[in-house]
């Protein structure tokens, strides 16, 4: 199974809905509209030839300059039989970052979606327990978004004589 056959099968099924086909470092990468993410995942899972039944990784990326689609949720899928990996991206508006949850399809998505919510604030619809996982529950912002710098080097509120700040 090559990237071309995967692309052909997906375009046969979904037509022009899937866009931005790329192959960085040999991995087929494409973008789906966020309403279709579950349908695409389900098709990739169920199709007898594609069999992308292993969710390797799920995370988000914040692109502040892309207005209206700031948050990208990235799925890495793996077909263990033919040993092919693909990458699926879904873009969401940061004002209303609602994406359908893949937990019904992949149990492994549970923690990964919680982590993505925790750091980027992507609201996974249908997730059984969408609460913070690594950060404290009281946190009221999503720290991996680009507007939060790691640490302001010029801050003066911290008196740290030991390390000379």
């Amino acid at each position, binding site marked *: 199974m090559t990237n071309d056959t995967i692309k052909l099968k997906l375009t046969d099924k979904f037509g022009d809905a899937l866009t931005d086909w790329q192959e*960085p470092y040999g991995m087929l990468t494409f973008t789906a509209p966020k309403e279709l993410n579950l349908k695409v995942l389900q098709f990739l899972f169920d199709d007898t030839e594609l069999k992308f039944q292993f969710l*390797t*990784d799920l995370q988000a*990326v914040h692109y502040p300059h892309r207005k209206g689609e700031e948050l990208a949720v990235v799925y*890495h899928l793996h077909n263990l039989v033919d040993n092919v990996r693909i990458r699926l991206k879904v873009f969401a508006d940061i004002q209303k970052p609602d994406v359908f949850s893949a937990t019904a399809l992949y*149990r*492994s998505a549970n923690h*990964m979606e919680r982590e993505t919510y925790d*750091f980027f604030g992507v609201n996974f619809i249908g997730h059984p327990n969408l609460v913070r996982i*690594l950060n404290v529950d009281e946190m009221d912002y999503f720290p991996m978004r680009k507007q939060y710098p790691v640490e302001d080097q010029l801050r003066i509120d911290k008196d740290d004589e030991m390390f000379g700040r």
Partner: protein
Amino acid sequence: MSEHILLPEGSIEKQTTTLNLGPTHPATHGVFQNILELDGERILKSTSTIGYIHRAFEKIAERRPLYQITPLTDRLNYCSSPINNMGWHLTCEKLLGIKTPKRVDYLRVIIMELARIADHLICNSIVGVDTGAFTGFLYVMQYRELIYEIYEEICGSRLTTTIGRIGGFERNFTPAAFKKLEKFLKEYPLVLKEFENLFTRNRIFMDRTIGCGPIAAERALNYGFTGPNLRAAGVDYDVRVHTPYSSYEDFDFIIPVGTTGDCYDRFLVRNEEMWQSLSIIEQAYQKVQEFKGAEAEVYHADTPAYYLPEKKDVYTKMEALIYHFKIVMGETAIPEGEVYSAVEGANGELGFYLISDGGRTPYRLHFRRPCFIYYQAFEELVKGGMLSDAVITMSSLNLIAGEMDA
């Protein structure tokens, strides 16, 4: 005539017991919490809380040049940090398009397999400790010490190694390192054999672990299991074979698989993997010895823009000084790209997803930490079992808090 007494929620007279296993419980072997709802000794429900040692590595990495991210990867699975380091170097090399010489690949394989042995050794002997056999743990500890001494000889540190650099190693392996490696290869098989004799057919151990915390193959795949835990369930997925990196295709080894995915299978798979790792190290060492003349001195790729030059060159050569300055100050631009690269970590597929926008630091870096993903299954694995089984299930899954929390 007595009336029914309605007990308020959370009353001490309720029928079940709530037990906090963790965050700092000796049985968790790491900082994470399991809140267990017990009926007698049977577990009705388990809820896990993680994140106690979250250190925001992904955020920190967005502000650091590539070579400064290596120490962060050390602290993921700290029982086998060299594998994490190599995984990170390989990711960078994939992004930068650097091809490493064969000798470097083989040296890396030696280090990675040593790390795998060290990790499995801890995991298996801890399963022993949790089932009540302390001897094995103390006995094999001195051989982990030998492995650490080999690391020390190569990079100077033991636990959080930061071993190697982008493109190769910081220095060539010294004769002392090879001597220690030979000592290890000579002595360790006997010890491993004895360790196996203590456990594998031990009646108490078998009774204790067989059928404890089992998982079926399909379920394990759906839960995102990788590594020895998945192989114990019967799926022969190994990144070293499926997507060979660092010249793993040159080696001859088998992937052990189990059948039921219970604690005993996981133990056996790890044990067999140690034997395979030993064989890989022997093969790699043989291949390394076959290099003659100038080739036998190669320990890094020729990529001056990313490989930190030797210190004595920095003081005497113009070019080395320039590159040293540029690399240390983090002024080397990373080419634009998006790359996912995975290595077979000691407890599963350790992936690095790196996005660069052409700046000097990664735009986004994500670690695919195997134990973060398969820990979700713990609640299901222990449900309905005994409390003491939960403890050995936990240790045989090889949960490392540093990796879970990143």
